[in-house]
């Protein structure tokens, strides 16, 4: 019998994972002012531009998706 991997069942592991994750996020935020961006657009040089854009994009995405769902969701057997 194989021993079940309880990797993420263990709350301590989940906490560790989230800790590493938040740590990476912080590192990315802190390193940003030290990177020379030779971007094509002026706003790329704004600090933490990509972080903000990524975050806002995803939130907007979910928001619009939820609104869209209200219009287009149908029962599984709609076409039958």
């Amino acid at each position, binding site marked *: 019998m*194989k021993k*079940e*991997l*309880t*990797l*993420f*069942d263990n709350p301590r592991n989940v906490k560790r994972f*989230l800790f590493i*994750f938040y740590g*990476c*996020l912080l590192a*990315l*935020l802190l*390193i*940003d002012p030290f*990177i*020379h*961006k*030779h*971007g*094509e*657009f002026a706003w*790329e040089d704004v600090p*933490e*531009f*990509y*972080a*903000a*854009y*990524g*975050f806002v*994009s*995803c*939130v*907007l*995405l*979910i928001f*619009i*998706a*939820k609104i*869209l*769902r209200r*219009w*287009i*969701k*149908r*029962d*599984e057997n*709609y*076409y039958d």
Partner: protein
Amino acid sequence: MDQLSLIIRFPPALLFIGGALLIPLFKGKIKSGFMLALPVLAFWAITDAASGSYWVFPVLDYDLVLGRVDALSRVFGYIFCIVTFLGVVFALNIDDDLQFCAAFAYAGGALGVTFAGDVFSLYIFWEIMAVASTFLILARRTRASQAAAMRYILVHIFGGLCLLAGIILYVQRTGTTQFGLMHLSGIDSYLIFLGIAVNAAIPPLHPWLSDAYPEATVAGAVFLSAFTTKSAVYLMARMFPGTELLIWLGAVMTAIPIFYAVLENDIRRVLAYSLINQVGFMMCGIGIGTALAINGTVSHAFCHILYKALLFMAAGSVLQVTGKIRCTDLGGLYKTMPLTCLFCIVGAASISAFPLFSGFVSKSMIISAAAHNKLIIVWLMLQFASAGVFHHAGIKVPFFMFFGHDSGIRAKEPPLNMLLAMAIAAGLCVFLGVYPYPLYSILPNPVDYIPYTAAHVVGQLQLLMFGALAFCLLILSGFYPAEMRAINLDADWFYRRLGVYFYRFSETILNSLNQTCERIFAKKLTSNLATQMENGAARLVILLMLPVWKTMNFSEERRTQLSSRIETTLRDGAVPIGISVAGAAILLSGLFFFH
């Protein structure tokens, strides 16, 4: 002359299609060996060929060119052979000749389209692809897959007919069957564009993809994901580079499917929408048309085929061993399927363009090209789409399949050949991500793009990781849309629902028209006519004779007796000849004098 050099002189497309016909003759290990050898031989044939036009067959007034080899077609030829090999390894344990024959015919069609130098052979291979791929859907042998296959082939017939119409008009206009760069002017180019657009799944012509691919077999989906759309990408790159319309179509094409992908329940449908999104990047790159953009498109197509096949293989493996493929039914599989989970994560990281994976070195070229050309809105849309891709394909697919809520399913890893295929694909994704130069060296234009700059790596990591943060927060706050068993309406509503209404409407009208006509013409009118014909002659004679008998003072009884005798005689046709002749003579002379 040794045997192998003879094969190299064959177009690789014919090698595959011919091979497809021979597959059912083999069994067991010989069959496996044969099927694995075919893509290797085809790959070898392409590496051997220098640029030029080969296998030219003059037919009637035109030349059929089966081997137009240059940098563009060679890259696509390579990746098609590689993915065929991977697909065969993945499918080796499946005992279904139909799928293998269909897959090889399909791959052969794709190779044929890639190396076709004239429009007629292009069309023939195009249709071979359409028909063969339908069988990969039909091979699932369920009611839903039959219906999906029917819709699939109808859409592709429509696309093929548009292409054919465009081709015929093109040949008529230019007098030649050779094709190359084309501009969107004149109806022939628009029709060809439309025909290719159907295969490329440009919205609103895209629903066939999200409808049919989830209904395909486990292995069939791997093949399907590679050929139809990418051969359309190749054709667009060959014929319509720099067309501004494509930039906008591509940008919109990256945006729309990600909303659907977030909402969908069936994992393979999520992957199908994700496919449309990625092809949108390629269309956009073709539209921009600069050397960097075309390089980006071609390298993206190369990498995309690999990681999309990997993702479909992972999803297919889960479907194979658990029998389930919906987010609502899955979760917690990382415990018993760690390898599949790992390979899925590699595929997910590749599609998201995570640094060190293949998407990072390819997709970024397209975005860079957009920036160079100062296409602000397009650039913003593409970045939005990149963040979105990470969301639905990078996170959602592995999360809901392998992590998420524990579904209680404890399935084992899929068979060794499936794991091996996934391992090779994952290895290639990582290899190309870390060392892209073998890929860069076969691109059509010289590459002076450096993917690993600090700015680029940090920027991309920020985009992706903060998108992931958004995902975490939305899940934890409960705002994330729940996975539920439902379907979402797409553009195919128009022909699936409206089409049904139109059918019912015309059916009611036409059927009632039919019934009314039957009642009037078939039943009443003809029977009336027949009765008239039967008694008409007798009635006429009696009518004529009645005044004569009255003047001769015949009694009522005598008149009735004579009438019935006349009726009987005329009905039985026993009229004496003399009377018939006299009657005919009177009639004819009447006609003669009064015409």
